[in-house]
């Protein structure tokens, strides 16, 4: 009995710690949430559609792309293009959720797979940073995801209600909050010189891709190539030793 209570307590602590860790990025999520709400109104989404999309899709970049394709007349709505765009923009999540697998126990995969719903770039980054320090847990991941969800949904609604009376976040430098936080997280993951080449390769591949193709392909391309180079160098080094 006390064991169960203690384990619930520690899960709650982890959940809150995850939410706290995500506050810096939640500020940026909120700023973009406002903008998305304003643009969604302009694109002709109804309030119910805004709520459904943010609750069910819950993926910022895919939702921004969807606004470009949305039409106010239902008959003209390009359903196939909307679904395909969401798939392509979100393909990077294959890499992100694969790295979270070690947090979960060997059994009970269905629940774990469903909990991936709450994974965003932001709480993923915070959680893998915690994992690199030997910390991080499912509750930590969920706490950050819950904060991101609340920040996204609430500011979408405020933006939708306010209409066009919203500033561009870049006017206040808030567009840089993502980049600054992710850069600091990256530096915190530095384990030694073995990281240098894979990170540089990932960065160069991402820069090249972002120049050539629109959208979020640079994350997927840089992430795959950089991590493969890292794995190749690491296994080759180990093979040399043995």
């Amino acid at each position, binding site marked *: 009995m006390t064991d169960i209570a203690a384990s619930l307590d520690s899960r709650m602590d982890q959940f809150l710690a995850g939410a706290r*860790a995500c*506050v*810096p990025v939640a500020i940026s999520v909120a700023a973009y949430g406002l903008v998305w709400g304003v643009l969604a109104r302009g694109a002709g*989404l*109804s309030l119910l*559609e805004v709520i459904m*999309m943010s609750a*069910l*899709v819950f*993926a910022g970049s*895919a939702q921004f792309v*969807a606004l470009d394709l949305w039409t106010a007349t*239902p*008959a003209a709505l390009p359903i196939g293009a909307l*679904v395909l765009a*969401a*798939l392509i923009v*979100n393909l990077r999540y*294959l890499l*992100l*959720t*694969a*790295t979270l*697998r070690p947090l979960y126990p060997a059994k009970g*995969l269905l629940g774990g797979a*469903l909990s*991936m719903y709450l994974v965003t770039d932001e709480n993923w980054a915070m959680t893998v940073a915690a994992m690199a320090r030997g910390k991080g847990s499912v509750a930590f991941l969920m706490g950050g995801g819950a904060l991101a969800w609340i920040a996204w949904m609430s500011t979408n609604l405020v933006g939708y209600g306010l209409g066009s009376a919203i500033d561009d976040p870049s006017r206040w*430098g808030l567009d*840089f909050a*993502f*980049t*600054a*936080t992710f*850069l*600091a997280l*990256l*530096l*915190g*993951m530095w384990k030694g010189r073995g990281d240098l080449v*894979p*990170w540089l*390769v*990932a*960065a160069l*591949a*991402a*820069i090249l891709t972002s120049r050539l193709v629109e959208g979020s392909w640079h*994350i*997927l391309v*840089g*992430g795959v*190539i*950089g*991590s*493969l*180079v*890292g*794995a*190749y160098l*690491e296994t080759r080094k180990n093979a040399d030793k043995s």
Partner: protein
Amino acid sequence: MLTSPEAVAAILGMAIVTMAVKASGFLLADRLPRDGFAAAWLRHIPGAVLAALVAPAVVTGGVAEAIAAAATAAVFILSKNLFAAMAIGVATVYAVRLLVAG
């Protein structure tokens, strides 16, 4: 206007493919061997993805982004404080954009 069947279909379709991708990565990780190349690959994904997220924003931005990235990195290396690093980065971008624009 509340919604339309077309809009509901589009939103549900978007939600299903998004959830499918997220769940697939998680489930596929189980199929990978626990050691050797595949395990090393998984270990290197977080750093590579973060580098891929950050690099284009820093390089293709302007002077403001480059200076702010340097300031963010310096503050984080010295203080190990994520929030301070983020706040300095945002403040620097704001200040340099004001100076450059005005």
